[in-house]
């Protein structure tokens, strides 16, 4: 196969294995802040992202995640801080010269152009030769399975098709960094689940580094290899989805990602390999298999996920990690049921149980007295 000289010169978009990110992060955000008049949208964010990573900024609306994304794209100027991409400081580079492309929440297709022209637009700005533009446009439309729609205009496309075109339009430019702003927000629920997987497949195929913004934790966990949970302009926790879910570092993360039972209490025993916490809301002490760097009598919270709660009719034999209550409500969801249990002191706890067999009579029912228990490895102690 022969290649033209132009093609040889172009950098590969795939992840370069010879450059380990541990030594040199691909995207570096250093102490970035953004103020609008008197409102602080983003305050002092530091973030490092490796090449080829799909990274999600997760937070509720107004937490500053979109502002951060727009600063990366160059559509907002940071008040303080630096953005370095592939060793290049972005401060003096206007948005139309950055090696970064963004997919907008509304997809922002040009309504007066066909799909083909939309995709070709970015290449035309780079003065790529006409013949190459045509080849690359067709190649990318094939990748997103939209080549049959090349001559259509944006109003002739469905939501999912518009998303593919928007993706093709930025991928065709072979950017160093891809930004996705709420990529699924304009799609209905069923299509969303399907497109999340497809989008990740395409991104991994191309191997491009990608930062996405979402308020949907399920979406972030499905698509991203790492998540940053944001609140009020700061990052609360960064890590792979499983770490953020299983080892939340604060009450905010625990409550924001999934649902959680939080019990407040104080430490009565703190050792290297375990800790015992006394909570007023539950009858027995809580035994956790990890210690904290804290003092005795320190006020802490214990977080236990609903699926880690075990619902039984019989009283557990253990000394620790159980409490009792009355079943107040049951939500049957097919594969599992959620039990709302009112504890003796009035606090409501949530427990989900997988419906492993078809018999219903053995499961707890309304107004029944039940015991909730959990393992020492299930609870997480939170000091923040």
């Amino acid at each position, binding site marked *: 196969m022969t290649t033209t000289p132009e093609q040889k010169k172009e950098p590969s978009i795939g992840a370069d294995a010879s450059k380990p990110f541990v030594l040199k992060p691909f995207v570096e955000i250093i102490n970035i802040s953004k103020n609008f008049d008197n409102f602080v949208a983003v305050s002092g964010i530091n973030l490092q992202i490796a090449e080829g990573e799909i990274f999600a900024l997760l937070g509720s609306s107004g937490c500053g995640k979109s502002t951060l994304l727009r600063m990366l794209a160059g*559509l907002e100027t940071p008040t303080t801080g630096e953005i370095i991409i592939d060793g290049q400081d972005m401060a003096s580079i206007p*948005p139309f010269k950055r090696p970064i492309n963004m997919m907008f*929440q509304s997809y*922002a*297709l040009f309504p007066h152009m066909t799909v083909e022209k939309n995709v070709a637009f970015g290449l035309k700005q780079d003065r790529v030769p006409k013949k190459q533009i045509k080849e690359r446009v067709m190649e990318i439309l094939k990748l997103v399975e939209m080549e049959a729609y090349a001559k259509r205009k944006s109003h002739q496309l469905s939501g999912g098709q518009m998303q593919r075109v928007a993706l093709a*339009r930025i991928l065709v430019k072979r950017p160093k960094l891809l930004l996705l702003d709420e990529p699924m927000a304009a799609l209905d629920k069923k299509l969303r689940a399907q497109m999340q997987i497809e989008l990740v497949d395409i991104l991994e195929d191309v191997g491009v580094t990608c930062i996405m913004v979402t308020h949907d934790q399920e979406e972030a966990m499905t698509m991203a290899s790492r998540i940053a949970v944001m609140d009020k302009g700061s990052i609360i926790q960064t890590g792979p989805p499983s770490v953020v879910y299983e080892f939340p570092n604060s009450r905010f993360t625990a409550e924001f990602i999934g649902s959680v039972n939080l019990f407040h209490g104080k430490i009565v025993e703190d050792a290297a390999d375990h800790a015992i916490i006394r909570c007023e809301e539950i009858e027995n002490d809580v035994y956790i298999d990890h210690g904290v760097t804290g003092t005795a009598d320190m006020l802490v919270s214990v977080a236990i996920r609903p699926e880690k709660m075990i619902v039984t009719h019989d009283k557990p034999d253990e000394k620790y990690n159980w409490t009792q209550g009355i079943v107040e409500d049951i939500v049957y969801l097919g594969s599992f049921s959620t039990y709302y249990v009112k504890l003796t002191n009035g606090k409501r706890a949530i427990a989900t149980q997988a419906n492993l067999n078809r018999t219903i009579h053995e499961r707890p029912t309304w107004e029944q007295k039940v015991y909730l228990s959990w393992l020492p490895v299930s609870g997480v102690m939170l000091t923040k």
Partner: protein
Amino acid sequence: MKGRTSYKMIIVLALGYAFLFGPIVILIVYSFNASKLVTVWGGFSLKWYGELLKDKGILDAFWNSLRIAFCTAGFATALGTIAGYVMARFGRFRGHTTFASTITAPLVMPEVITGLASLLLFVSMERIIGWPQGRGMLTIWIAHVTFATAFVAIIVSSRLRDMDLSIEEAALDLGAPPLKVFFVITLPIIAPALISGWLLAFTLSLDDLVITSFVAGPGSTTLPMKVFSAARLGISPKINAIGTLIVLIASFFIVSFSIISFKMEKKRKREAQQAFENN
């Protein structure tokens, strides 16, 4: 019950239309009157249209009006688009409110005031810098551009506010410098608003009497001025004839513009429907 309601509604509708269009219908009917008396019907005739073609004064005034309206519409559309863009896209810069209110002031200013102010401006400018020399087509054009720009700016800025800002940002993000984004993305998308603005500026200029009277000079009589002065000397059916012609031309443009945009909208909706059904 339903029949009676719609019967009443039709009467109300007819009365409304009669109130709006009755005078115009009478004007058109009497333009075909054979009698020289405007208010007495003397049989059907086209003679006033023939007379009209022979009246060089009216034809000249009509030609003047057309030229001024054409130039005004073009220039006002260009200026109004820039002003509208600044109002809609530049955020709350220093002096934003002052800018927006001075641009839109001619909308609420009484025409007499605008006309008088323009006249005073032209007179003192001539005295101080020697330009514009005297009053004529040029001064009428400048005065018309001033107020027509306001209307175009309003139309364009409201269209721009409706437009998804991220479309422009996407173009910027894909590598087009700001000026190119404006010409290649923004302008084509707001083109319908520019056409409406142009048509509005054209009609406003064609129609204006008060401001024109203040700033006109010898040899620059426009059609409204001619009609007005003719009417003061006694109404001639020729005026009806020219009125009919203007109504016909205006309706032709308005009707064809609405038909075209209606058809385009219908086609767009049908295609969107198809895209929806195919998935």
